């Protein structure tokens, strides 16, 4: 009986042998770099049966198992389809040695023998993301330049700033509104206070509101976000105070409409044709509505000044508004308007950033050209790779 069973079993295993799947080979594991020690990167060589073009396919995929060094807690940590040679297990614990196995999966229940890791791997926690070290240097350079020039300006180093047409027109626009006895409209865009263009827009609002208070005109600020309304109220109130006319501040003129883009726009266009503002300011983030606003403003004869960092909307503002602050000019506006030396210094810092960009571009393209002419394996090529992948990339890993 025992013998018979044994015999039967051997026939079974012989059958399995015939149809056995080849296991993948050469399983290797390394600690995933620059993480908190929860990941291990696995690589292997595909099973010889793994042929994506074979019909029917022999290997459908792979299963990856992880266990502790003593074989405990063995569990499947992932499956990958055929043709894939790598996997990252991200559910490890830092400092614990693990063993991994991988098996080929065929049709139905068919499984290969496992390929095992030769020696255990221990994921390690890294405290600093080294792949971002060069990026850190760039951040320090750019921010350092801004801070340096801000400091220099504070100590009385005069800064030249070129003209930005749209900004000089603010006084003109407000003055015109005063003369015509019509209101000014300020639209701070669609985004919330967590977006920097909105903050830049609010900075411009501070200046516009101050001019309006000085001229004794009215300013309406409908917003699409409650937080922007809160901030805009603080700003307008402060500007009235700064203009020496705290009594002209009216909270009701800074109000919330709706978070929905086109409901906000429907209200704004309605407002424009009914109240006919003489000056419209758009500063912040704008999307599709830019053209509806600018065309409606144009049709009621308002003088329009726009500024946005949304490149896709710039053509419409450029075409339909009187003045447009293009991209970076929006961020430069508050510095320019304040005329404070410190703020103007920051503009010089931004220019230093552009010089850095230009220098990197020229050096990089020169290297790339040299590398292209010199062919493979030239020193230029390795320098280019270092520049692109290490300095401007992610250190090659992580």
């Amino acid at each position, binding site marked *: 009986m025992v013998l018979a069973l044994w015999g039967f079993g051997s026939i079974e295993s012989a059958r399995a042998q015939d149809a056995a799947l080849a296991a993948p080979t050469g399983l290797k594991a390394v600690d995933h770099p620059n993480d908190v020690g929860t990941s291990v990167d696995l690589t292997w060589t595909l099973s010889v049966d793994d042929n994506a073009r074979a019909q029917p396919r022999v290997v459908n995929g792979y299963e990856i198992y992880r266990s502790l060094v003593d074989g405990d807690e063995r569990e499947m940590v992932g499956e990958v389809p055929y043709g894939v040679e790598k996997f990252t297990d991200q559910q490890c614990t830092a400092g614990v040695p693990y063993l991994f196995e991988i098996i080929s999966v065929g049709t139905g229940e068919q499984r290969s023998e496992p390929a095992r890791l030769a020696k255990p791997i221990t994921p390690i926690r890294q405290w600093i993301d080294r792949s971002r070290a060069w990026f850190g240097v760039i951040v320090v350079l750019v921010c350092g330049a801004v801070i340096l020039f801000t400091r220099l300006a504070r100590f009385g180093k005069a800064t030249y*700033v070129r003209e930005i047409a749209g900004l000089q027109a603010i006084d003109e626009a407000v003055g015109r509104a005063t003369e015509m006895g019509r209101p000014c409209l300020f639209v701070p865009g669609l985004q919330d206070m967590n977006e920097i263009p909105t*903050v830049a827009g609010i900075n411009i609002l501070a200046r516009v509101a101050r001019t309006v208070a000085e001229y004794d005109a009215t300013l309406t600020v409908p917003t699409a976000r409650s937080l922007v309304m809160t901030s805009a109220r603080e700003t307008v109130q402060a500007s009235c105070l700064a203009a020496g006319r705290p009594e002209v501040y009216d909270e009701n003129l800074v109000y919330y409409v709706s978070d929905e883009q086109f*409901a906000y726009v429907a209200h704004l266009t309605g407002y424009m044709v009914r109240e006919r503002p003489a000056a419209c300011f758009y500063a912040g983030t704008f999307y599709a509505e830019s053209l509806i606003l600018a065309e409606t403003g144009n049709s009621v004869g308002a003088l329009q000044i726009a500024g946005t960092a949304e490149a896709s909307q710039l053509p419409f503002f450029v075409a339909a508004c009187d003045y447009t602050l293009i991209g970076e000019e929006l961020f430069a506006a508050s510095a320019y308007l304040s005329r404070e030396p410190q703020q103007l210094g920051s503009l010089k810092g931004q*220019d230093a950033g552009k010089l850095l*960009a230009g220098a990197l571009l020229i050096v990089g393209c020169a290297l790339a050209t040299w590398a292209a002419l010199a*062919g493979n394996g030239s020193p230029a090529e390795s320098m280019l790779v270092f520049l692109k992948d290490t300095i*401007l990339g992610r250190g090659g890993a992580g």
Partner: protein
Amino acid sequence: MNRETLGWTVVLLIGALGLFGRAMSKPEGMGKVYIKAVRIAPDSPTDTRTTFTKVEPKDSEAIVSVPRTVGVWIAALGTLAIFSFLYRDNVFYKLAESVFVGVTAAWAMVLGFWESIVDKLLRNLAPGLMRAWALPGLSDKQEPNYLYIVPLILGIMLLWRLVPRGAWIARWPLAVVVGTFAGLKLVNFLDADFVSQIRNTIIPLIVVVNGKVDPWASLRNTGLLVGVLSSLTYFFFSVEHKGFVGNVSRVGVWFLMVTFGASFAFTVMGRIALLAARVEFLFNDWLWLIDPGDKRPKGW
């Protein structure tokens, strides 16, 4: 009644009569929405509740839904009301605008309540209570995360504005928001836009393919580099745009104009598509003049 009002009243009357005539004269009518009943839990033996889902009129179990048919008519009239603004501001547009603002503002609040307050804040502060109430699928393993008391406190500070005294308290959460995101955006923008775009622009000015110089590709790459550098020059603030710098920045402006021209052309394309979709809604879903998807049986 002046002449213009009279004229528009006549136009509206004729339109209404036309619609009525069309709805009556055709056997299949127009602007109807069909539904059928389906079980909420089709696999459950005990839960026999049903709900309705939209089907095409071809479906044998299809019945006309009154709320949805009314809906299609309201949607169509709303569409026309908004379009009427192109002629000029009028009572229909004002009505549509008022409804639109009210509905969307409330919608934002509702969404904020269910998705942020319930699903984010209360889920973390009181998971047990939420499991029993609105989030039954919440994992049993979820423990309270008391770190979320911080946004709760910040939120309450924000609402302090509604209290007559000490409105300045609301500035603190505002400062947290602006400060946090200023830090976050600083690194994100420098990484993804500044560094990445420089990296993408590092290209050989002379392109060699199989040992031969490719003049067109070389010219293209050179043009790209010149474009980026000259456009960057336009953005220089602390240098007077005269002489050499002036000429370079002028070339930069041309590149920017090419960019804007391309953007404009692409946008035209998209906007027409949106209008086409609205017109199709009017012709297809409301008036039943066309049937592009072959969804209604012919002539019944």
